[in-house]
């Protein structure tokens, strides 16, 4: 499926918005959250540019599963580091191990069932963190209402990451054409919700 002119504009807008967040949207935080958010938004930016330039075929690359994992994991790590101090080390360790496991099961070509299980676990952990943590922070008034947008983005990216990863692993939940048609707009909406959520908290 070809990338249409509208799709290109949507990917470009995604890249520009992610660039804004990296350049000026995460100042004043600690070193670890800045690093985590830079990796997360950086992956969004580079992914947007690569699809813009290389087309949807780039989604066939084995590296997509890894990149689709980097984005939620790094954002989740940044938020846990900021808001759940007692869990910092545990969470970041688990996330690092999970990321390595996804990479190993993907490139070492182990059993497909094991690969899918690990992928679902890691995505589930990161997705639930991004979805629940901002909501609980808003509920306990430790963050403004706008932070809830990150939950919305988390739900969307969690779903999209899983759909993409399962598609890449040959067990599609949604067929490729439908997924690719919705992908550019969804990608932009996710980036916008994150950027607004992080800036309006």
């Amino acid at each position: 499926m070809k990338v249409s002119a509208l799709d290109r504009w949507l990917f470009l807008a995604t890249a520009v918005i992610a660039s804004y967040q990296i350049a000026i949207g995460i100042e004043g935080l600690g070193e670890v959250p800045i690093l985590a958010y830079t990796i997360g938004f950086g992956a969004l930016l580079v992914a947007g540019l690569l699809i813009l330039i290389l087309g949807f075929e780039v989604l066939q690359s084995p590296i997509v599963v890894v990149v689709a994992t980097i984005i939620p994991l790094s954002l989740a790590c940044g938020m846990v580091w900021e808001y759940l101090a007692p869990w910092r080390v545990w969470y970041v360790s688990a996330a690092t191990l999970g990321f390595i496991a996804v990479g190993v099961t993907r490139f070492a070509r182990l059993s497909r069932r094991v690969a899918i299980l690990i992928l679902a676990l890691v995505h589930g952990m990161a997705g639930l963190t991004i979805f629940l943590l901002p909501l609980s922070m808003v509920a306990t008034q430790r963050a403004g209402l706008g932070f809830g947008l990150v939950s919305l983005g988390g739900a969307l990216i969690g779903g999209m990451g899983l759909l993409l990863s399962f598609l890449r692993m040959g067990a599609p939940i949604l067929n490729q054409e439908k997924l690719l048609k919705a992908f550019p707009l969804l990608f932009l909406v996710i980036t916008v919700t994150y950027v607004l959520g992080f800036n309006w908290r």
Partner: protein
Amino acid sequence: MYNLENFGKNPRLTESILATLEDQMNRSARWLPKLKHKVRLYLPLIKSLQTFLLLATGLAGYMSARCPIFHLPTLLGLSGSLFLAISGSTVLNMWWDRDIDAKMGRTQKRPLPSGELSSQETFRLGLVLSVIGLGWSALLSPLYALVVFAGWFFDVVVYTIWLKRRTCWSIVWGGIAGGMPILAGRVLGVGSIDLIGILLTLSVLFWIPTHILTFAMRFYSDYQHAGVPTFPSCYGFPVTRATIAASSVLAAFAIGTASILIGVQWGFLRLLVVLSSGLLLLAIGSLIRPNERVNFGLFKYASLYMLASMILLSIQ
């Protein structure tokens, strides 16, 4: 002249005025499409995208020293003189290479090889643009003018006339010529040639091979047919891909180092690191799984990267 007080009263006079007006309007109507036609023919001669990208590097070089910009006359002078000098050298390059362009499928529809423009007219255009551009730069600053002239000389004389048809290594001189606008901008800003200026020049110099070598691979048979020695024809595709990947990474390294020395804000540096990692990813990809799509993707990304870097240097 007509006495307009009598307009409408004297039918013969009115008719005469109307006829004259109609004649003048007809002349204007003929003149405008002619101008449009000329502009349409001249635009491809200056390779507008490449010229504007080089102009952007010149502006970034200047703004890296003088940001924020408030001195509008200097900025306009820089833009105008660089645009004209770069355009002039590009037109002269087209004029000299008209026989090569006529043999290559990619270029044979250009106005000169297709016969829409005469070689004399093209030569005159290139010369006029060059003289005005170089003359204007001399009015701004002698050192700036020297650098602009060096860029023009390396591009027209050393690269195009002397080396392009003799050796595939001519791209080094093409690269040096391409690096001159950013150095010129920097020189106009700081008044001397400094380390940052040299690093910025190197960043463009290393970016140029991604442009030229990608085209040399993509239009390999065209260049073979025209008898132009290229890296792929001299050293093969794998070496060319490795050269493109290495030069892209070196370009990123040079611009990164220059940015640190300039004192670019931490946020912009972060962004530059992210963009550089994308470039590195593509460069590695083009070596591990070489194919035309990835190679051309690397070229497009490198161009986007260069433009983004120039914008970051300008707004820092």
